């Protein structure tokens, strides 16, 4: 064989072969390796072989055949390597996707990962995807989330961003969830709203795909007999992919993916990859949904537990109340009856005792002392009642008006006036009506006690989230010592009553976390202020 080539030389120079590049210098000194890797594909060598085939050498056609087979096998290996590389990438991606999906029980996170995976270049590289979730109670498949650009301009911006920030799938998904989830939902709101299909509509292509549990590639959508025209118009693409999400035979939802911007053809390879991806996504969505439901149930159970605890505490409290009630009832019965008999008979005796009779003074003293003792007894019983307030929402205007009405007769007898203008804008107050009414009455009584012609002004208004009731007497002057004494149990003031009165009011109100503020400036006037809560939260 007379060839103008280098194959028959053991060692060659770099300039002898145009097929040997930099970095392949070892081929210059190894003929066998050079022939296998380079000469078999060298046109000079192959032409020479063809020419030689016509010669009489019987090895020539065999050599040509061996070279052809070698070339075919090399191409096949190359194709397999390429296939394996793709599969390796796909497996890596699926592994990453699986890890992310398995580690999350948050529905929004799972959905973000799923849709990011479909649209990310590193994933399946589709332009746009819509997720529909099945609502079994309503019997519909409903559009839940969309992802992707709406136009070319947005697409360029979005893909530039992704290219500039080289992120892995998890980071991309997290980024989407934190920064774009709500905006994407709003962006595709119009589309998602119309992507609702009855699960019972077995003729609808989406439901058919869901029931069939395998991906469906829809081509020529605008003229496809099974595709409703409105669906094709809504998506605005001729080709799209329907990927059912099915977990343990449960129909979880559907992903509709398309290449709305690039119009790249969706290959059977894409479909196959997405099919592999569908199951873990469906499973993760179902698990996250179940976790959500579990969380709701857990909250409900926790709430029920708390309520039960409250009820138990209430029962214990009520048992204590019952005990207090029994004790006070016993005291009331044992003391009030003898007091009543003493006072009653003394009063009867007065009626038949002459005014000039020196014993009349003694009898009057008995009447007066028993009246005072009855008053003290009332206050003690009220005090025991005050230990356990029963709160509810009440109209403050009504509470104040009723309290003043109860005192009307007493006010008239003493020539006093009490004015109150209801405030219609007030919300309801969360109070023990009995106790607050008692306090309003007691505050007014203590103010007019032993005096006449007093004018009391009552106001009720909303201030900083509380209702304030002020009871004001501008004519009254009270010293600081008298004020302190007023609020001390069983202390006596000269002209403002005695016993528990205001101290009891303060205790009652404190039990309801209602502050009682008494202001009596030296220049005159006295103002009592009650600050009532308007919600349960303000109670400690």
């Amino acid at each position, binding site marked *: 064989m007379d060839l103008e080539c280098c194959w028959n030389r053991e060692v060659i120079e770099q300039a002898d072969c145009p097929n040997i590049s930099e970095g392949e210098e070892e081929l210059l000194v190894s003929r066998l390796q050079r022939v296998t890797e380079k000469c078999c594909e060298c046109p000079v060598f192959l032409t020479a072989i063809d020419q030689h085939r016509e010669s009489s050498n019987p090895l020539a056609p065999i050599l040509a055949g061996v070279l052809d087979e070698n070339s075919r096998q090399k191409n096949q290996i190359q194709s397999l390597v390429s296939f394996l590389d793709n599969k390796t990438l796909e497996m890596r991606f699926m592994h990453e996707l699986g890890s992310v999906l398995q580690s999350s029980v948050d529905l929004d996170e799972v959905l973000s990962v799923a849709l990011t995976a479909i649209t990310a270049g590193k994933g399946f590289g589709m332009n746009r995807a819509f997720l529909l979730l099945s609502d079994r109670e309503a019997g519909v498949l409903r559009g839940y989330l969309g992802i992707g650009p709406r136009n070319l301009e947005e697409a360029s911006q979005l893909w530039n961003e992704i290219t500039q920030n080289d992120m892995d799938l998890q980071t991309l998904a997290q980024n989407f969830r934190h920064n774009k989830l709500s905006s994407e939902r709003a962006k595709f709101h119009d589309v998602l709203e119309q992507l609702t299909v009855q699960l019972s509509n077995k003729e609808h292509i989406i439901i058919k795909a869901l029931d069939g549990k395998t991906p469906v590639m829809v081509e020529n959508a605008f003229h496809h007999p099974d595709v409703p025209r409105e669906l094709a118009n809504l998506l605005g693409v001729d080709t799209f992919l329907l990927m059912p999400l099915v977990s343990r035979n449960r129909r979880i939802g559907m992903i509709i993916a398309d290449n709305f911007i690039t119009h790249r053809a969706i290959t059977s390879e894409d479909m196959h990859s997405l099919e592999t991806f569908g199951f873990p996504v469906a499973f993760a969505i179902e698990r996250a949904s179940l976790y959500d439901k579990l969380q709701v149930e857990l909250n409900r159970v926790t709430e029920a537990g708390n309520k039960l605890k409250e009820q138990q505490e209430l029962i214990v409290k009520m048992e204590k109340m019952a005990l207090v009630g029994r004790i006070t009832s016993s005291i009331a*019965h044992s003391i009030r009856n003898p007091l009543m*008999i*003493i006072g009653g008979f003394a009063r*009867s005796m007065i009626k038949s005792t002459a005014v000039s009779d020196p014993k009349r003074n003694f009898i009057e003293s008995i009447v007066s002392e028993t009246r005072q003792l009855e008053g003290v007894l009332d206050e003690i019983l009220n005090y025991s009642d005050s230990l356990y307030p029963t709160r509810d929402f009440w109209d403050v205007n009504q509470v104040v008006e009723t309290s003043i009405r109860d005192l009307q007769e007493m006010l008239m007898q003493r020539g006093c006036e009490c004015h109150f203008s209801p405030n219609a804008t007030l919300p309801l107050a969360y109070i023990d009506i009995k106790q607050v009414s008692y306090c309003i009455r007691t505050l007014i009584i203590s103010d007019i006690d032993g005096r006449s012609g007093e004018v009391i002004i009552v106001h009720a208004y909303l201030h900083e989230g509380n209702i304030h009731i002020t009871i004001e007497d501008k004519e009254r002057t009270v010293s600081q010592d008298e004020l302190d004494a007023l609020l001390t149990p069983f202390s006596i003031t000269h002209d403002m009553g005695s016993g528990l009165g205001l101290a009891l009011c303060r205790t009652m109100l404190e039990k309801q976390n209602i502050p009682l503020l008494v202001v009596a400036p030296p220049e005159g006037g006295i103002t009592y202020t009650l600050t009532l809560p308007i919600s349960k939260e303000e109670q400690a």
Partner: protein
Amino acid sequence: MSKLLVVDDEANIRILYSEELKDEGYEVVTAANIAEATEKLQESVFDLAVLDIKLKNESGIELLQKLVKERHEMPVILCSAFSCYKDDFSAWLADGYVVKSGDLTELKHEIARVLAKKAQKLKAGL
């Protein structure tokens, strides 16, 4: 003259009520417990009953329920040593409620009010 039935387990209270209410112009019959009250109710017709709630081991509320059922035309005033019964739903069946006091003015007012109301009802044919 209106005829009143006073039911109280304390003998001195019965005497006091009896004397004071007679002075007001009422005819007063007293009873110390439910059995005695039932007996008196069978013997004659009363215009009004004044009941104590605590009757030793018995309850005036029980008697009240019985009277509302069997003698609904006869008004009842509950008279008790404690004010908490005002909040007892059963006590709401009574026509009046008075807390016991040596000063019988409130009781007398209440009796007069309830009897006047009854008379008005009768007049209206209700």
